[in-house]
C-alpha cells in the first residue's frame, strides 16, 4: 500500500490534519470527567476528558490511537461537545460520525469505539452535574 491515500473525505483530511482538541485538558473551573474505550483488536483506543460547569460541557479534549477516521471522529466529537448541555441527549453515535466523515462501512467498528468512549464520558458528566 503506497502513501497515496485517496479514500479519505475532505472532512477526514481536515480533521486529521489539524487534530484540533487533542491533548491535555487545561485547568479551569468545573468538574473534570473522563471517558475511555479500548479495542486493540480493532486498533482503536480513545480517551475523552471534559470539564463540566453549570450543566454544560465547558471544554472537551481527546487522545486517540487508531486510523485517520478514528482520530478525525474523536476530534469532531470533542468539538461538538464543547459548550453542549450535559443532558441534551446523545446524538453523536457511530452512524452520525460515519455520515459526518463519509466513512466507509469497514470503519464502523472503529467509530463504535469512539462512540463507546463518548458514552462513558457523558455518563460521568451526568453524574457530576
Amino acid at each position, binding site marked *: 500500500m*503506497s502513501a497515496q491515500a485517496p479514500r479519505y473525505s475532505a472532512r477526514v483530511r481536515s480533521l486529521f490534519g489539524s487534530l484540533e482538541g487533542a491533548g491535555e485538558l487545561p485547568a479551569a473551573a468545573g468538574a473534570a470527567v473522563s471517558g475511555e474505550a479500548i479495542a486493540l483488536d480493532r486498533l482503536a483506543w480513545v480517551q475523552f476528558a471534559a470539564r463540566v460547569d453549570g450543566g454544560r460541557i465547558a471544554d472537551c479534549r481527546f487522545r486517540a490511537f487508531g486510523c485517520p477516521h478514528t482520530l478525525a471522529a474523536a476530534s469532531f466529537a470533542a468539538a461538538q461537545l464543547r459548550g453542549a448541555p450535559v443532558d441534551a441527549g446523545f446524538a453523536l453515535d457511530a452512524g452520525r460520525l460515519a455520515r459526518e466523515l463519509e466513512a466507509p462501512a469497514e470503519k464502523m467498528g472503529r467509530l463504535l469505539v469512539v462512540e463507546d468512549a463518548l458514552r462513558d464520558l457523558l455518563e460521568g458528566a451526568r453524574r457530576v452535574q
Partner: protein
Amino acid sequence: MKGAVYLDHAATAPLDPRVATAMAACLADPDLQANPASSHAAGRAAAERLAAARSQVARLVNAPPEAIVLTSGATESVNLAVLGAVRGAGSARRHVVTSRIEHRAGLDACRQLEREGHGVTWLAPGGDGLIRPDQVGAALREDTTLVSLMHANNETGVLTDIAAVARLCEARGIAFHVDAAQSAGKVPVDAAVPGIALLSFCAHKLGGPKGVGALYVRRRPRPPIQPLHHGGGQERGLRSGTLALHQAVGFGLACEQARAALGEEPSRIRVLRERLWGLLQAAAPAWRNGAAEPSLPGILSVGFAGIEGESLLLELDGEVAAASGAACNSATGEPSHVLRALGRSDEAIQASLRLSLGRSTTAEDVDRAAAAIVHAVARLRAALPVGALERIA
C-alpha cells in the same frame, strides 16, 4: 515544492528514462514490427533484436540466453516454476518445500498444489526473518520434487543462503526454484550455481517496464516443466504467445544497466539505508523487522511504538511514498503474513513501515524522508492516550 520522496522501490522502481526511450524507439521502428517467430526477413530482424535483449537479460543472472523464458512478470515466472515443475514431474503425489514468508505468488501457487493433492512443507523463519539451510535439509523427503524459496524477502529484505540450499538440492537431485524478483539487479545473482534449476525475476523492480519477466530454466539437466499457457509453442514450448518485442528490449536494457551498477550501487544504497535507520532513532522507541544482515541493501522494515500504520501513511502523504505493514495485502487489508511469521503482533505489524531505496535515492532523499517520518511519529504520539506508548508495540 519538492515531490514525495520515493521509498517504495521494492514495490516497483521508476522506469529508467533510457529504457523508456529504447522501448519507444522499438515501437516506432518500422523494421521491428514483425512477429519475431516469423521466418521472413522482417521477422528475422525482430528475432535478432529479441535475441540481443534476451542475452542482456541472461547476463544479469549469469545464464545462457537459451535458458531464459520470457514471461509477463515475476508472478507468472513463479507460477510456471512451481506449478510447472511439480505437474511436470508426473501424476504421482509430490512433496514441495517452501516457506511461510514467500511472496503471494509463491504462497498461492503452493496452496494450489495442496489442492491438487501434493504435500507442502511450510518452513517458518526465525524471529530474524531467516530461513536456514538446515531447516530445508531437515524437511527434504524421498518424494520431494521441488524446493522453492525467495532469495530476498520483499518485506524485510533478509537474504536466504541460496548457494547452501542449492548444494542440498543438488546432492538429492531435487529441483530448486529461486524467486529472485527482489534481488536480481540489486545484488549479484548467479543462476549457474550448481543445484539451481529455476530462477524467477522481472523487469520493473530494476528500472524496466512492468509486464515482462523471466524464468531461468536450467538446460542440463532440464527440469521437466509443464507449461501454463498452450498455443504457438514459443519460448521452447514453455510460454506460448507472441512476444512483445518492446517489452523485451526494455527488460534487456534495464538488466544491462543494473548489471553495470552492481559493482558500486549495493554498497552506496546500504550506506544510505543505515543512514536512514540512524536518523530514525530520533523516533525511538523503534525497531527493525528482520536481521540487518544478510539483507538486500535497499530494504528497511521499521516499526514505531504507539503508531498505527494507516495514520502514519496519511501523515506522510505527499512527503514519503512507502509501504505499510500491510504491504502485500493492500487488497484485503490483512496484516503482513511475513511480519506475522516473524512473531510480530498485529499492533506491531500495523506500526511497521517498509522503506525501500533504489538507484534514484540520494542522501538528500534519505534526510528529507527521515525528517518527515520523525515529525509524523512525534505528532501522532502527542495525541496518544495515556499509557498507549508503552502498551502498543
